[in-house]
């Protein structure tokens, strides 16, 4: 059920008037009661104090006649029911009237006299400071029936006045509100309801000159504007709808094409990634092939020397054997043979040892590079093996490789991946950093910090331009595209360190001063 503003306002106004009226009535009643009780008390106190003052001497000398005269004087006063005077031992000296059992209020006051001190005669003559002494009590009983009657009458009057005032005020406020507020508001409400239904041809009549007239004028203007805007809006909507339909068609076509392109791109990306992986793998194999070629070349010389020396030794031995069989062998020729044989066999042994060492190192490094086994290995000896395996490439230059590493560091990781990283970094320094250097230096320093192995690989080469330093780990980034660089070397390093070895790598470089790579990998690599 909808409660209109006029009803709400009416209920609120009447409630306020009732509350105010009741409060006022209660206050008036309370105030009147206080006033009447106060008057009664004041009158009673005045009577009893006056009597106490006057009766002091008669009580002191027990003068019944004077006591009676004074008490009867009090008894003649309005509402005085009874008066009793007692001595200091509460014995009744005089009583007039009997108090009713109820509807009576008792007032008590002491009869005080002044008592002389022990210098009575001197006090009598010069005046002293007498002590107070209670010689009796006055009990005054005042009837409250007339007070109660007055209060009751007053209460009735107040209630009648308050109810009358509430009714009159409520009625008046209701009528005024209906005339001044409800009617114009209802008119506006009906108009808004019509507008809500879509009837914009609404015009509210303006008969007054108050706020409602202003509101009605504004409302009429608003409906006019609404009507106008509705027409414009309809036109605009029609136009926009047509445009949207066209755009929608275009978008459908474009969306279809975009989907096709995306699919093609996705395929291309897949192919690209595959190619990249193949290229990385090829690069790894190529570097291994280079290593093999280098090693083959390297062992060719000592083997050749060994073959030549062995041929020479064989020839010399045949010659000495012939001399012996022909009994033409001299002591000096035998001694010469022994000397040559010893020298040649030493030469052969030296070169075969060197070959053996090269093959061992190569075998170790190449085997690790082709396998993916995890094992415990000593860092220093493994770094030395890597350096030896790279000698075919490094020995043709004047560059030196220095390893600073404690002897006893062992890690549990992938040695192949480790070798791949160090090999690529050394070759990268040789090919790029120390390219134009006559005598460069590569320093590989290994330390252990916080359960991690820290390897810093530095060279004193030409450094990397700041424009390039953020791209060096990107695949196919190379500054030697025309000279056969693939741009995958450092990309392989980055992937191997971060994925296979579960570590981090960073690079810092100053042009013409050198480059440093810092790698941190766990000493014990957890199985993935």
């Amino acid at each position: 059920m909808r409660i209109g503003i006029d009803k709400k306002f009416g209920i609120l106004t009447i409630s306020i008037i009732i509350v105010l009226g009741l409060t006022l009535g209660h206050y008036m009643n309370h105030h009147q009661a206080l006033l009447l009780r106060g008057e009664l008390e004041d009158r009673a106190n005045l009577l009893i104090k006056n009597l106490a003052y006057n009766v002091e001497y008669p009580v002191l000398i027990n003068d019944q006649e004077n006591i009676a005269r004074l008490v009867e004087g009090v008894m003649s006063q309005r509402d005085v029911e009874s008066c009793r005077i007692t001595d200091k031992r509460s014995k009744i000296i005089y009583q007039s009237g009997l108090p009713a059992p109820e509807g009576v209020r008792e007032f008590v006051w002491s009869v005080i006299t002044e008592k002389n001190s022990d210098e009575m005669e001197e006090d009598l003559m010069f005046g002293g400071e007498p002590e107070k002494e209670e010689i009796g009590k006055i009990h005054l009983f005042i009837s409250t029936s007339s007070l109660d009657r007055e209060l009751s009458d007053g209460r009735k009057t107040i209630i009648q006045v308050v109810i009358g005032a509430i009714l009159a005020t409520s009625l008046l406020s209701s009528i005024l509100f209906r005339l001044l507020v409800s009617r114009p508001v209802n008119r506006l409400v009906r108009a808004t309801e019509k507008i809500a239904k879509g009837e914009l041809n609404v015009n509210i009549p303006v008969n007054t000159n108050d706020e409602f007239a202003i509101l009605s004028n504004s409302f009429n203007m608003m409906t006019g504007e609404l009507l106008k805007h509705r027409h414009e809006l309809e036109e605009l909507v029609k136009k926009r709808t047509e445009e949207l339909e066209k755009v929608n068609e275009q978008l459908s076509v474009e969306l279809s094409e975009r989907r096709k392109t995306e699919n093609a791109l996705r395929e291309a990306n897949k192919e690209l990634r595959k190619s990249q992986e193949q290229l990385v793998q090829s690069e790894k194999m190529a570097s291994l092939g280079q290593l093999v070629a280098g090693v083959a070349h390297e062992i060719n010389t000592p083997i050749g020397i060994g073959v030549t020396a062995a041929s020479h030794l064989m020839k010399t031995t045949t010659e000495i054997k012939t001399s012996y069989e022909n009994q033409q062998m001299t002591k000096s020729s035998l001694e010469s043979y022994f000397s040559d044989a010893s020298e040649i066999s030493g030469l052969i042994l030296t070169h075969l040892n060197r070959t053996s060492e090269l093959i061992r190192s190569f075998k170790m490094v190449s085997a690790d590079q082709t396998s993916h086994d995890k094992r415990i290995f000593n860092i220093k000896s493994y770094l030395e093996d890597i350096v030896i395996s790279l000698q075919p490439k490094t020995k043709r230059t004047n560059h030196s490789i220095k390893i600073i590493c404690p002897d006893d560091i062992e890690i549990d990781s992938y040695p192949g991946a480790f070798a791949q990283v160090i090999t690529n970094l050394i070759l990268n320094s040789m090919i790029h950093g120390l390219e134009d250097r006559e005598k460069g230096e590569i320093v590989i320093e290994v330390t252990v910090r916080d359960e991690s192995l820290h390897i810093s690989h530095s060279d004193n080469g030409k450094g990397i331009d700041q424009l390039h330093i953020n791209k060096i780990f990107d695949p196919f980034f190379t500054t030697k595209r025309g000279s056969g660089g693939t741009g995958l070397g450092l990309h392989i390093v980055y992937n191997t360190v971060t994925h296979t070895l579960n570590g981090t790598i960073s690079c810092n470089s100053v042009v013409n001063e050198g480059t440093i790579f810092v790698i941190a990998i766990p000493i014990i690599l957890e199985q993935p």
Partner: protein
Amino acid sequence: MKNQKYITFLLLFIILTISLSTPYASGESLPVTLIYSSNRTPYTLIENGIRRFFTDKSIDISISSYNLKKQSPDVIYRKIETNAPKILFTIGTRATRFAVKKIKNSPVVFSMVLDPEKFLGPNVSGVSLNVPTEMKLEIVKEIIPQAKKAGIIYSQKSLPYYQETTEACKKLDFELISIKLEDKSEFPDAVNEISVKADFLLMVMDSTIYFSQSIKYLLTESLRHKLPVIGLSSLYTKAGALISFESDYNNIGRQAGELGLMKFKGHTSGRSSLVKPQKITFSLNMITADRMNITIPSEIINKASETFGK
């Protein structure tokens, strides 16, 4: 030669007399003790009178004062024992009662005591406060010449006053209307009777009859019945009595000082003495006089120490 011997003898006699008569006059102070009963303005006047007397006599005194209202009797007694005063003055009844009971070695001189006879003893003397009734009646006669009947209300306690009044009335040709009260409740009736029979009422020093309520009653009734009341002090005059007589308290002090010095000089004096006040003052209430249609002669008014109402 004979004359020379005579002069030498005379000089020696004079020196000896002076040295014996004023033993504390040459530089040394005479130790004097004052004991007050309480703080009252007239008591201060007594001390002033004593001091003035010794000053006039060129006797240097050192006074130790004690007040029974402020100090305990035991403390006062111990101090007096230590100081050993040459003269002890008491002011008021309580102080006198204390000194009579405790002090035996020093001469005690009392003042401001209303019933002095009972305190007199071997070392106790004093100045009476009572104004002789005869002196009172003489002045009353001048103020109210038509008055012939003097009224008095007394009790057993104030019997000596009654007797003194009887004698004074006889001397001055007044008829005495007297009512003896057995109980204080008889007082209102007595006042009514006196107001009818007597021309004036002479109050007596009797606390069993006169107390604040009865005095209030008496003064109210006296004004109502136009009965002149002869009060006990200026307080009564102020409250409505026609006239009140008092001793001159300064002069009582002087009299006490003189009596004390005399006792001190006598040393072993066993003779007691009671001195009557020499100077009397009186106060007048002119409003009461008007109310009672009494015209007081101007020379009497001029002699009054205080007049109220004009």
